[in-house]
């Protein structure tokens, strides 16, 4: 787990935005721009999807990214690959150490399986994403595009014998992860509203996003 702080100055960022828990952020990021996601109060999960702006059918691929880097966790130096094997973004600074991309996002329907059938009405990341794409048709995204995401700040350890668990986060107040876009991309973040597991300490809190360049 490699840790590296950024040299970028927040006062110079062109965009400085706070995403409340249970809300989303949908944004075009140009090649060369750097995105920082800050876990303001700690233990929050940033459920994130990336699409190639020129052709959103090409999007972030968790399985291609993991396989080609030969490691099941994302961290400093990880290249976020597209479904066509192209580098979309690269993680350039990280105060956390590792991030999950196996656990997927919470949804009303998966909550019924994981917790209780009567929890179907609780807010979820997928609801936030669906509202985002339905409210912004100009992006050309629909439910078909809601796929396998990254969970920045989330800790999902796997074991050599094939176990998988959700654990208290490695993140903490003010910790951040930073990545540079290598292509023009669309970024879609859900600030996770999950109240049923420790991925956000049972207490969803705000995230901050900063963009330079």
């Amino acid at each position: 787990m490699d840790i590296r702080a950024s040299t970028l100055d927040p006062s110079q960022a062109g965009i400085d935005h706070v995403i409340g828990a249970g809300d989303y952020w949908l944004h075009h990021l140009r090649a060369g721009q750097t995105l920082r996601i800050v876990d303001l109060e700690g233990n929050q999960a940033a459920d994130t999807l990336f699409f190639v702006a020129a052709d959103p059918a090409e999007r972030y691929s968790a399985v291609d990214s993991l396989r080609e880097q030969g490691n099941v966790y994302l961290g400093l130096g990880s290249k976020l690959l597209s479904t066509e094997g192209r580098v979309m973004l690269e993680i350039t600074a990280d105060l956390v150490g590792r991030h999950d991309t196996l656990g997927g996002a919470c949804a009303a329907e998966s909550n019924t399986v994981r917790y209780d059938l009567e929890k179907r009405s609780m807010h979820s990341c997928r609801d936030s994403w669906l509202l985002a794409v339905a409210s912004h048709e100009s992006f050309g995204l629909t439910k078909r595009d809601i796929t396998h995401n990254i969970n920045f700040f989330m800790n999902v350890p796997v074991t050599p014998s094939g176990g998988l668990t959700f654990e208290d986060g490695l993140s903490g107040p003010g910790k951040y992860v930073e990545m540079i876009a290598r292509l023009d991309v669309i970024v879609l973040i859900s600030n996770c509203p999950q109240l049923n597991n420790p991925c956000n300490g049972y207490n969803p809190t705000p995230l901050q996003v900063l963009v330079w360049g």
Partner: protein
Amino acid sequence: MVIDYETQLDGGKHWSFVAKRGSGLCLEDVAGGANLAMLFYNPLNPLERYNAPDTLKCQHTLRLTRGHCLYSDMGRIFCSIIEDSVGWHDTIGGNANRALVAKRWGDVSYQAARNDWTQNGHDAFLVEAAKYGLGRRDLAANVNWFSKVAADDRGRLTFAAGHSAAGSQVTLRFEMDSLVLLHSCPHPMNPADAYPRQPVKLSFFQAPPVAEDDVCRTSRPENLRGFENNRLYHLGGGH
């Protein structure tokens, strides 16, 4: 067990079909070292599709074996694994595309080799998906039957060579009607020197009804709720 239909998919081929609720499908690695990739969709609403993350996190597992269920993104179970002689099937290794196959094993064209060309899993899935109006936006992390990708204590991934012996079998029972896309192209992490071309035998049969103490239903409390979601779905007439 009465076999309704039996066929063999040679290595490097693709196919698709709609499996009916209650049907069974036994997959056999005929010669050892096979890889059979699969994706699942609801034929009535293909926006409902296999979700590897939900499948793994609902059952707290990185591997798939007997007792596990394959979940859709709508909290329902496409199929359950009722028998397995292998012990670990992969759903995180993904698929090889043409560039990856060319880099690893060379790009042998149809012109040069006819049906012994080096077909790749990505193109194979695209061809089958297109038959149902689906495309690149609809592909997802797939299952790789008979393949094992494990992570060590530091998360480093390795492909287990020689994992599946000749004659290995895994048997599925479909819990709802499912559109199945499949291919037998090589696993992207297979280190073999030559393009692997291992056949898989598929046997279709009628599965016995799901018993109260069924191993897939009862292996985890989550699966009891998954089966309940399927029951509710079928109360509505299957729509």
